[in-house]
């Protein structure tokens, strides 16, 4: 035997397992002054055809456009016109109102489940503004903003949430697991991470066919630990795929903070570096920064310059879902202490600073969003709420397992229908 004699390390220290802990637990006073927030405008903007390696400094930095005086500054300023800014603002407000109404609906027993994206509204809505209408998304359950921004009917979303007669998914999916081909919104999966490499596959197909549409895949910070994350990055790098891969780092995965996904050691944007993929770390509560980063990545993809991984740094301001109570694992006021602020307030302040907005218009916008959402809700609830479902059209639950109904499923359908008549 050649190896060294273990006796030689008699004085070696005991090995230790490090188990990451979040900064604060219930009862603590959250204090994020330790979080380094780079100044808006300070991050350089490489050429979209730059080698991936040139983006490395950006993976530990933070692309920010809106400064403390609510001005858009620096090389990443996408220089959007006021109409576009107002459209993003409106979408964000609508999403927030929608979330609140549907959360309430769940609490009222009208459905089984709901998930908000409070505090993260800028990410999906500004992304939608930055891409083309026919680009494709493989979203998670926190990108409802994509559907809202793309004009998918709010009532259709609600119909899905209620699993009612108008539900495009025929009552088959858990609430918020939307899917709509016409709006380039791929079916949300309950299985975390699965959509990420699927997005790469879609973009591979686009490249194989010489298309010009690109694709964007989405994942949460927690879900980056799944093997599917690795598949996505590996295939994207190998085939130089025209895809944008977005990690929404809202710092929580149910009760686990992002350190449990590795955030103590590296940013999620840094993962890109390891694969030779371009990486950007972006203030996710800054709609302009979101827009700019997506625009940059889209141009890169469309010119065959390669994939980009964007980490949107944000904070999950509310519970994971209606099944979750975050006061069990973090201070209740942590969201308020979060230094990157509220995306709606920040964009509003920017428009105000530009003199393209005023409080009256803002109130009107909120009122309008409220009215729109209520109208949609009324329309949707006419088609039913969850507790009334599951009795009609029982036979439909046997459709679409296959293109045709094979004999064994037909037999089961007959049995289910007979059972219904019992």
């Amino acid at each position, binding site marked *: 035997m050649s190896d060294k004699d273990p006796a030689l390390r008699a004085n070696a220290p005991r090995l230790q*397992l490090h*188990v990451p*802990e979040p900064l604060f*637990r219930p009862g603590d006073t959250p204090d994020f002054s330790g979080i380094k927030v780079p100044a808006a405008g300070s991050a350089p903007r490489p050429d979209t055809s730059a080698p991936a390696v040139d983006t490395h400094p950006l993976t530990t930095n933070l692309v920010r456009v809106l400064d403390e005086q609510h001005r858009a500054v620096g090389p990443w300023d996408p220089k959007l016109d006021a109409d576009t800014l107002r459209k993003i603002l409106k979408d964000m407000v609508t999403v927030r109102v929608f979330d609140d109404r549907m959360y309430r609906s769940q609490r009222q027993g009208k459905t*089984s*489940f709901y998930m908000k994206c409070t505090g993260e509204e800028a990410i999906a809505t500004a992304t939608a503004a930055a891409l083309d209408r026919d680009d494709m998304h493989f979203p998670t359950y926190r990108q409802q903003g994509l559907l809202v921004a793309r004009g998918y009917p709010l009532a259709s979303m609600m119909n899905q949430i209620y*699993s009612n007669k108008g*539900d495009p998914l*025929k*009552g*088959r*999916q*858990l*609430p918020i*697991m939307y899917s709509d081909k016409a709006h380039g919104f791929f079916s949300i*999966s*309950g*299985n*975390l*991470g699965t959509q990420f490499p699927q997005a790469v596959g879609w973009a591979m197909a686009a490249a194989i066919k010489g298309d010009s549409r690109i694709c964007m895949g989405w994942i949460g910070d*927690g*879900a980056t*630990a*799944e*093997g*599917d994350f690795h598949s996505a990055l590996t295939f994207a790098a190998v085939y130089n795929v025209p895809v944008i891969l977005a990690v929404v780092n809202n710092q929580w*995965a*149910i*009760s*686990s903070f992002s350190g*449990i*996904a*590795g955030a103590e050691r590296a940013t999620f944007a840094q993962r890109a570096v390891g694969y030779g993929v371009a990486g950007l770390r972006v203030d996710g509560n800054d709609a302009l920064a979101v827009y700019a980063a997506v625009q940059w990545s889209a141009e890169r993809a469309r010119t065959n310059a390669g994939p980009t991984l964007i980490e949107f740094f944000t904070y999950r301001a509310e519970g994971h879902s209606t*099944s979750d109570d975050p006061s*069990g*694992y973090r201070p209740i006021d942590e969201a308020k202490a979060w230094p990157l602020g509220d995306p709606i307030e920040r964009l509003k302040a920017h428009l105000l600073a530009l003199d393209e907005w005023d409080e009256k218009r803002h109130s009107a916008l909120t009122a309008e969003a409220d009215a729109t959402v209520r109208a949609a809700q009324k329309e949707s609830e006419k088609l039913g709420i*969850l507790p009334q*479902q*599951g*009795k009609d059209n*029982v036979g439909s*639950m*046997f459709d679409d*397992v296959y293109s045709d109904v094979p004999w*064994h*499923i037909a037999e*089961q359908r007959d*049995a*289910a229908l*007979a*059972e*219904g008549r*019992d």
Partner: protein
Amino acid sequence: MPTMNMIQALNDAHKVAMRADNDIVVFGEDIGFFGGVFRVTEGLQKEFGKTRVFDAPISEGGIVATAVGMAAYGIKPVIEIQFADYIYPGYDQIVSEVAKMRYRTAGEWPMPMVIRTPYGGGIFGGQTHSQSPESLFTHIAGLKVVIPSTPHDAKGLLLAAIEDPDPVIFFEPKRIYNGPFDGHHDRPVTPWTKHPASDVPEGHYTVPLGKAAVVRKGHALTVLAYGTMVHVALAAVEEQGLDAEVIDLRTLVPLDIATIKRSVEKTGRCLIAQEAPRTSGFAAELSALVQERCFYHLEAPVERVTGWDTPYPHAYEWAYFPGPKRLKRALEKVMAD
């Protein structure tokens, strides 16, 4: 004896085991500080410390894989997969590694570990919070598969599983975590307190793996069930006024074939109830076994009552679940033939 629901009983089993054996470590998604989304591991981190009870990254493959490494080292992992619907990313490690390690190392590296996971529908969880994938594990030689149906059995079986020298997939019927469920979803929920098997002995005891329980004696037919379906079956035969013998399998692998055979030879009729989709579900194996071993005693075909060969549809949960009506029809069929 304290009265416990199934969650409390499982929690207690962890505590009893971990107090007795320093080498037991517990990890999984959200199971540490928070105590798990179903609260089964509540308080464990506080009592046993962060290096024995900790949150894991959202990587079922990584959770199982690191558990393999730990078992190779010689400590005993008891891990949680948050929902059985999410076990598939860990399926390769379970099938290719956990199940085969003792065999391929000629016994040098056994893989004692427990993989706990809530399974089954009935909580409006939709397609990805309702699955019953047990048959996919019963096909894999090297795994034991255990499913309790009461707080008493949950604690005793979990302790037995933790002490077992082989890897155990421990499926927890989430619909009955908080109370037995007779399948009548439109009636008020019964809490466990009303059920005798909520009397859970303090401290250490085990319910042996591989032993079924005859939970109701009878002569007219044999009903084989496990997990939630035990309670649904009991209610159904009661409502039908049948002199049925109901067997709670408790362990699917290794199966208590002797108890099954004895019963079917006596009754001559057999109904098998499972919540999982029909085709290639474990009920098929049971049906084949009963037919092979009791053929000349059978007075009617062995019947299966099952979930459908579709994903578990959110709004149609109760049209999917094999509830009282489906059981009633099947019971009538078995008795009529």
